[in-house]
Structure formats: C-alpha cells, structure tokens
C-alpha cells in the first residue's frame, strides 16, 4: 500500500497533470460563484467526452480539482449575497451573511476557506487511511440505523427553533409536508399533486425553496435600507487572517465537523445536502454560548458547515472508488469517466489500480490547499461586494435567485414557486418564524419516511431490537433531552415576563401566518384522508395532524398574549434583522410592496418573454427606474446579464432556456 501511495504521488509529476489541475481549479472557482444551474455536474457532462481521450491521471486531475475547489469556494454566495451556494453550503448563510452585512465579510471568508482547507485535508487523510475499514463501516449501517440517524438530524429542529419552539415545530412540519409532495415510491400514490400537474410529481425542488426563503429577505433588506444610497454601508472590518485564526482556535470544532462530513460522505443515503445542516446543528448544540450568538454572525456558524462540506468530498470519493457507489450526480459522472478510461471503481480498482486511487487522494489534498489559497486570493477584492449599493446588488441577487430557480425544473411553475416562497420567507422572518427548521424538514422528511418504510417492510418490527438501533436511539434521545434541558435553564427568566405581559385577548399580524399554516395542515388532512395507510402515515399522522394541533396552540398563545411576537428580539437561530432599524413604517411598507412588485414583475417577464430577454429587461428597468442609475451603467448591467444567460449558456454550452410564453403562442 505504501508503494502504491508513492506511485500515486509520482503519477502527478507530469506537466499535463499539473496543467489539468490548474484548469480544474479555475473552472471550480467559476462554478462556485456562478448561479445554480451551472454547477459541477454540467461541467462534468461537458468535459467528459473531451477528457476521456487524455492521459487518465490528467483527466482525473481536472475533475477532482474542479469538484474540490467548487466546494471550498462555495461560501462566497452565502456570505456576500445571502443566497445558498449550492448543496452543502446552505447553512453558511445563517451566520455568514450577518457577518458580511456587519462588515466582517473578510473574516467570514477567511474562516470559511481555512475551515474548507482543514476539512478537505481531514477528508483526504481519511480517504487514504480508511481503505481497509470502509466496507465494514458501510455494511454496519442498514436502513434501520439510517432511520435513527435521520431522526437525530430532525431533532436539531429543537436547536434551530430557539426560543420559539412551537413556531419552529410548525415550520418543520410544513417542511416535512412539502417533502411528501409527489409520487410515493412505495405505493405509487400521487400526494398533493395539485391540478394533476406533473411539476409536482417528482417532488418539490429544495433549491427553489432555499433560494427564495433566504435570498429574498436578504435582497429585501438591501432594498429597504437603500444601502449605499440612503444608508452608508458598514466599513469593512477585520482581515482574512482573523477568520483563519478563528478557525485554528476552533480546531476541535473543525475536527468534529470534518469527521461528521466524512461520515455523511461515506454513508450512502444521507445525501450531501444535509451535511452542512447537521454540522451547523451539532455546533449550535455543543458550542459555548451558541444560544445567544448563533444566527447573528458567530464565526463558528461558518466554520462548522464549511469544514463538514469540504471534508465530505473525501468520504464521498471513498465510497465511489472503493465500492463503486456514487453518492450524487457528480460522482456518478466521475464513475462514468473512470469506466471510459478503463478503470472499474470498486474492488477491481483497489486490486489493479491502487496507485490511481492514491493519485486521486493526492489530487484531492493538493486541490484543497490550492483551492483555499485561491479563495484567500480572491476574498479581499470580492469582500468589497458587501459595500456595493443596493441598486446594483438587488438586481444581481434577484438574477441569481430567478436563474437558480428556473434551473430546478426548467418550468414556469419554478418562477411562481420562487415568488410564493419568497413571500413566505419574508413573512416568516417578519413574524419570527424560524426558517431553518422548514429546510431541515424538507431535507429529511423524505429520508425519514423512506427508511422507516424499508426497515418495517424488510424486518417487521424486529428492527427496533437491533443493538445498533438501540444504541443510536439512546444517543439520539439523550442528545434531544440534553438540548431541551439546557434550554429550560433560562426559561424561568423569560416566563414571568411573558406572563406579566398578558393583557387579555389580542390579535397580531403574526397570527395570520399561523392561520395560513393551520389552513395548509387542514387541507393536507382532508386531501389525504382517502389514501392507503402507508401513503398517509407520514404526511397525515406524523406531520399534518400534529402540525394542526401545534398551529392551534400557537394561535391560542398569540391571542391570549402568552407569547409576545414580532417586535420582540428573539434568540432563535435566525439571520440578523437590524439593518432596517429606524426606518419609518410607511416607507418600509411602501418599499416592501415595491420590492415584491419588481420581483414578481421579473418572474412574469421571464415567463412571457423567456429568461434571456425577460431577466436583462428587468435588470435594465430596475437599475434605471428604481435604482436611478446612469443609463450607461444600467445598460452595461443588462448587457452583462444577457451575455451571461445567452452567451454562456446558449451560445457556448448549447443549453437552451425554456421559451417565453409569448413566443410559444406566436
């Protein structure tokens, strides 16, 4: 094995391999900052037909380097723009964006890249050392064990809900309900497929919901304060090195989250999208003082998800190379490329091409280091984005959101959904409903139902008696109990105040949102009542009925004043809201309405004219009329948007966007 490791390193001593790695790093950096729809899978699909003719190590180098760097640099979007940076980098928004708005973008980016580098190296070493133990570890975890692991992930709702546990649970129930939309694999029952529309049959796209829930409130904050025009942007504070030092100081958190990331990468079935949320939840549960600081710009909330996300690649490749199990589209394509080059991932490759596996290890490690250095290099100039005025930033952010949304299913309904969830995101933030539990529910609902069904269908109820299940269940329930107990400690300080505020019956705008959730749960029960037991077990009995009860309890608390809401500063894990403080209510209302009119108008323009015309038109009009930018700058922004949408996608990559409704009618 040692010889293979040395040979793997020697394989890299070739000019073309170095060049390929450099190209991979450049492309990976680009895909990290590009909107969703132009991610690693697309690049892989475009490159594979070309590179399979190359020297195999050079071909592997470009693919691995691209993927590794794309993960490491994925923090730019959440920190600078407040929008998700693709799978595995969503939770970074929760603390990264508040840091960016506070002027600490450089520190957040520094922490993110250092965490990424360390995570990547830990993932790489694990990949190198885990060859003998990988298979037994994977075999140890069957569907029953995975069910308990997913359940553990779901208990993190308790953390992410903070001081508004009922609202957090309602949001999580809503997320779980969304995850049940589409055809249930086990029964073929189409659940909540509105108007028989095929759009809903394959489930609901998480990327649309995440973009809308987090991206729209972020853009709205800028539009409300007219940052850079009416309000001076916060000066850039701190340095990249400060973030790097934070990361080194929190080395134990990095190690823990990295191993969590490796583990999620290794175990087929958990999914890359969950890794950052699990790591964030773990950090929120274990870091000192997290209750007070997480969600408000705590650097540890950046370090945890980023280290886990980058370490995950090592675990992912471990399963791909040693067992031939791809964990996602990118690794499935990587396997296709390996097969085309004559390597058969799995035992065959371990026996015949161990040196190539070690070349992958070395490339991954080197790319992690170089990718982080590239990230550091670009961070200083990019951090200045946080100071750009709203009239430029808002159309850019909305461009990313609308383009990312339309990339999900390439259907006009993507646009409608992003507008609806954008509105929901705004109201949830406004009325102190935590959004992360909704995302977590959506991420894990599907897995929870699947593993519960498979465990019961395969083993009956005997699976509950498996020793590994019992151990994991004890750990999960213990962790939940610890979280709840630690939160109870402070409750006594808050409760008397809340009781003292009781002044009889009252009605608050937040109650309207709770009523909306109540209506959704009632509708879910009514629609699903006729389904078979297996089809309705999760959406009705596990989600909608408890959700309905919780919504009623919340309404009672709202109207009796036993829980103040809205204006009260909550300690839940949410994004900082302080940027609009001091703004006149009427002005804020008018600007909010105006913002949503622009946003919905952009979606309608895309639907009618197609994205290549509709989106640049929106950018032009917004910057000219709302932003009062100079005409040449507005034109430049619109031209840039057009060049990106048409030039890069349609002309260069030959990927056509859906036609506008008007053009289809003509």
């Amino acid at each position, binding site marked *: 094995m040692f010889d293979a490791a040395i040979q793997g390193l020697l394989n890299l001593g070739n000019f073309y391999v170095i060049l390929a790695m450099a190209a991979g790093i450049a492309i990976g950096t680009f895909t990290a900052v590009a909107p969703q729809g132009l991610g690693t899978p697309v690049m892989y699909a475009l490159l594979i037909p070309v590179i399979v003719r190359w020297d195999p190590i050079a071909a592997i180098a470009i693919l691995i380097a691209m993927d590794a760097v794309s993960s490491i640099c994925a923090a730019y979007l959440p920190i600078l723009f407040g929008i998700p940076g693709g799978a595995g980098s969503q939770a970074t928004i929760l603390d990264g964006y508040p840091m960016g708005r506070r002027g600490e973008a450089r520190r957040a980016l520094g922490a993110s890249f250092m965490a990424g580098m360390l995570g990547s190296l830990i993932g790489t070493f694990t990949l190198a050392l885990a060859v003998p133990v990988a298979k037994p570890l994977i075999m140890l975890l069957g569907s029953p064990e995975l069910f308990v692991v997913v359940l553990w992930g779901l208990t993190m709702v308790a953390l992410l809900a903070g001081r508004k546990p009922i609202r957090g649970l309602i949001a999580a129930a809503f997320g779980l309900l969304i995850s049940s939309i589409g055809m249930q694999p086990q029964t073929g029952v189409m659940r909540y497929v509105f108007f028989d529309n095929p759009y809903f049959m394959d489930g609901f796209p998480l990327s649309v919901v995440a973009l809308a829930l987090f991206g729209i409130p972020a853009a709205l904050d800028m539009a409300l304060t007219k940052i850079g025009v009416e309000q001076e942007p916060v000066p850039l504070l701190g340095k990249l090195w400060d973030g790097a030092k934070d990361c080194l100081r929190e080395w134990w958190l990095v190690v823990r989250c990295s191993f969590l990331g490796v583990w999620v990468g290794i175990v087929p079935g958990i999914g890359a999208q969950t890794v950052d949320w699990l790591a964030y939840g773990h950090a929120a549960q274990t870091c000192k003082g997290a209750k007070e600081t997480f969600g408000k710009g705590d650097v540890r909330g950046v370090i945890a998800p980023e280290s886990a996300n980058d370490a995950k690649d090592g675990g992912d490749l471990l399963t791909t190379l040693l067992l031939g199990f791809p964990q996602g589209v990118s690794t499935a394509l990587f396997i296709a490329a390996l097969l085309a080059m004559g390597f058969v991932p*799995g035992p065959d490759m371990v026996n015949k091409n161990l040196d190539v596996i070690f070349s992958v290890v070395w490339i991954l490690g080197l790319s992690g280091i170089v990718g982080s250095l590239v990230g550091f290099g670009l961070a200083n100039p990019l951090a200045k984005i946080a100071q750009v005025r709203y009239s430029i930033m808002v159309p850019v952010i909305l461009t990313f959101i609308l383009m990312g949304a339309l990339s999900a299913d390439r259907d006009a309904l993507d646009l409608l959904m992003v507008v609806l969830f954008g509105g929901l995101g705004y109201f949830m933030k406004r009325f102190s409903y935590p959004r992360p539990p909704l995302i977590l529910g959506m991420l894990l609902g599907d897995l929870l139902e699947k593993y519960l069904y498979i465990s019961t269908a395969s083993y009956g109820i005997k699976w509950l008696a498996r020793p590994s299940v019992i151990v994991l269940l004890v750990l999960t329930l213990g962790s939940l109990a610890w979280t709840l107990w630690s939160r109870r400690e402070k409750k006594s300080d808050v409760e008397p105040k809340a009781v003292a505020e009781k002044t009889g019956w009252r009605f608050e705008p937040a109650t309207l949102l709770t009523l909306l959730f109540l209506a959704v749960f009632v509708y879910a029960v009514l629609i699903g009542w006729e389904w078979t037991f297996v089809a309705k077990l999760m959406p009705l009995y596990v989600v909608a009925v408890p959700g309905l009860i919780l919504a009623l309890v919340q309404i009672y608390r709202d109207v009796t004043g036993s829980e103040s809401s809205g204006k009260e500063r909550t300690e839940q894990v949410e994004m900082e809201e302080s940027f609009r403080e001091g703004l006149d209510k009427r002005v804020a209302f008018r600007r909010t309405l105006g913002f949503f009119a622009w946003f919905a108008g952009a979606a309608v323009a895309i639907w009618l004219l197609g994205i290549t015309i509709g989106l640049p038109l929106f950018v032009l009009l917004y910057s000219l009329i709302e932003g009062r930018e100079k005409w040449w700058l507005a034109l430049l922004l619109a031209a840039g948007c057009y060049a990106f949408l048409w030039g890069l996608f349609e002309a260069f990559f030959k990927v056509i966007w859906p036609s506008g409704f008007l053009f289809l009618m003509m």
Partner: protein
Amino acid sequence: MKVIEGFRKSLVLTGFFALSIGPGSAQAADAPFYQGKTINVIAVDQPGGTGDLRTRVVTQFLQKHLPGNPNIVMQYIPNDILAANTLANVVKRDGLTLGRVNSSVYANAIFGAEGSRYKLADFSYFGGAEAGGPYLLIIRPGLGIDSVEKLKAYKGLRFANRNVGHTMYILDRMMAFTLDLKEPKWILGYNSQEIRLAMERGEADAQSNSIPSFMRGTQHWLKEGFSIPLIMKNIKGRGADVAPGFPQDRPSLDQFTDTEFKKAVLRFHNSIRPSGTVFVAPKGIPEPAFKALREAFNKVWSDPQFATEFNRITKEEPDPVTGEEVERVLEQAPKDPKVMEAYKQIIGAGPLPSSR
C-alpha cells in the same frame, strides 16, 4: 434635462429590444430543410448525468448526418410526463424541436398515467440507441436459490427496487407473475446504489437488473455466491449473448409461460417497451423535416463510428432500435382488454393478478 434623460432612456429601451430580438435569417428555397437552422432537443434529464452523456453522443452524430449541418442545442425537462406533455401539446410542429424520452412514455400513454395529456399517436418516432435489457434476476447468497424450481418454491422473497411503475419494478412483477412466486414482497424506495448495498447486507433478497449494467457494476457477485436463476430477453430477442463473460446457460423467462394468458401478458409487456429511450418529434412536422430526420437517425444507428464513440463515452454497447421498428412493435401490441387489465395490475402497487 429631464426631457433629454427621458429620451435617452427610451433610446436605451428601444435599442435593448432591437438587440434582444435579433436579425432574422433568410433561407434559400432549394437548400436542405435544416440548413442554417437550430434544432432544440428536449431531454428528460438534468444537465449532467449519464442519460445526458448518451443523448449528447447521439446529437453529435445526428448533426453529422443531417443535411444542412444544423446547430443542435439541448433543453432539459427532468420529468417524464411533463416532457412528453410539452412535446405533444406545447412545442411548435416545425421540425425544430425534438425530444429524447424514456421508455415509460409508452405505458404512461396507454394507461393514461396521472398527469399525462398525450397519446402514442401524438409523436413521430425516430428510435433510440438502446433497445433496453436483456435482463436478469439475481438472488443474494444464503437462501439456497440457484434454480427456477427452488425460486418457485421459496416463500416471501423480498425484491429491492426503486418505486412503483419503475422499469425494474415491472420486471420484478412480471417475473413473480409468470413464475407464480409465493408471497413475494417489494421493498421500495431505494436508489440503484442502495439496492446493491441492500442485497449485500441481506436487507433484500432479489433484484432485477439489465445484464450490461450488472456486468459493469456487480460482476464480482458471481464469485461471491449470488445466483442468477433466470434471464429475460429483450425486444430484439437478445439474451446472455450481449455479454460474453456472463453465464450463457441461464433459462429465459419466456420458457416458463405455461399458459396462453401468461404468454399474452409477456407479449404485451414486450410490445409496449420497444426501446430503452426514444427520440420523438410532435406528430405533424413538415414532411421534408420528417424524412430528413428519419434518414439521419437511421444513419446514426448504423454508423460504426457512432457505436465506437457511444461505447467510449458511456462504456455501453449501443443496441439501436429504429423509428420504423418502434412504430411496428407499437402497432402489433395486443389489444385484449383482459390482458391489458392484468398488465395494469402488474405495473401498479396492489396484489398481482391471477395468472390463469
């Protein structure tokens, strides 16, 4: 100043529209239909993915064989029914939009799957690179099932699969129906990699797979005690011969159709699955476009360079089916309501129909 600024803004907007709409293109009357044109291929994939790779190899050769050397671009609708609905009802019938859809397009149309708004007759067919299959049934070690007789005697076999209606699920059910298996169970919800793990962990007992896919991914199982009691030939009548390293002595499912009814159901199954994937255009495209596409696709399917390139990129041997073959098989599909009703039960989630 306001007037000048307003004039400038109007000028900018007018210029923007002029640039967006762009210049039109003239076409000579005697030029090939596709000269100077762009064909849009709607694929049932996300960009990236192995399906996308296969489609791109086909379009690369289609461009080569279509007179006029048109530009071909990809559009993606990653949903079987949505893509078929769009192709049948939304896109223009101008020959400039094609689709690459999965084999489910046939059964969804025949049985009126939820959400489908198209019929088989709504499309012109140009064939596909893969006929699909042939298939096998593999059993995990430890159950002692190494023959069809032992398989038929076994009670409560647990099949691992993806979802109700999936091609492999239907194959499982066809095998259980044809062999009269005793109390078979379906453990659904896995993806293809998880099925492999479930088989290795003993969480499931049996799995259907295509022989080429098995040989690519889990050939080593043959040395690890997994058994293959039978195979199922594909529409072209090919069986174990597609893979030289595969055991050539396994019986085929059609040898166990011991009643006329079973034979009819199996015939129906084969006839509504004439290809693994298929290229289509909405019915009613201009005749010159249809002719050019038919000829070009047939040239792609018979081009040895295509076979080499397809194999190089995907590591799969292409097994093309032409548009004419697809149409012929679909026309010959049995129309017996009793057979169709039984088949509908087989592809659904409920109990299997009686095989008598």
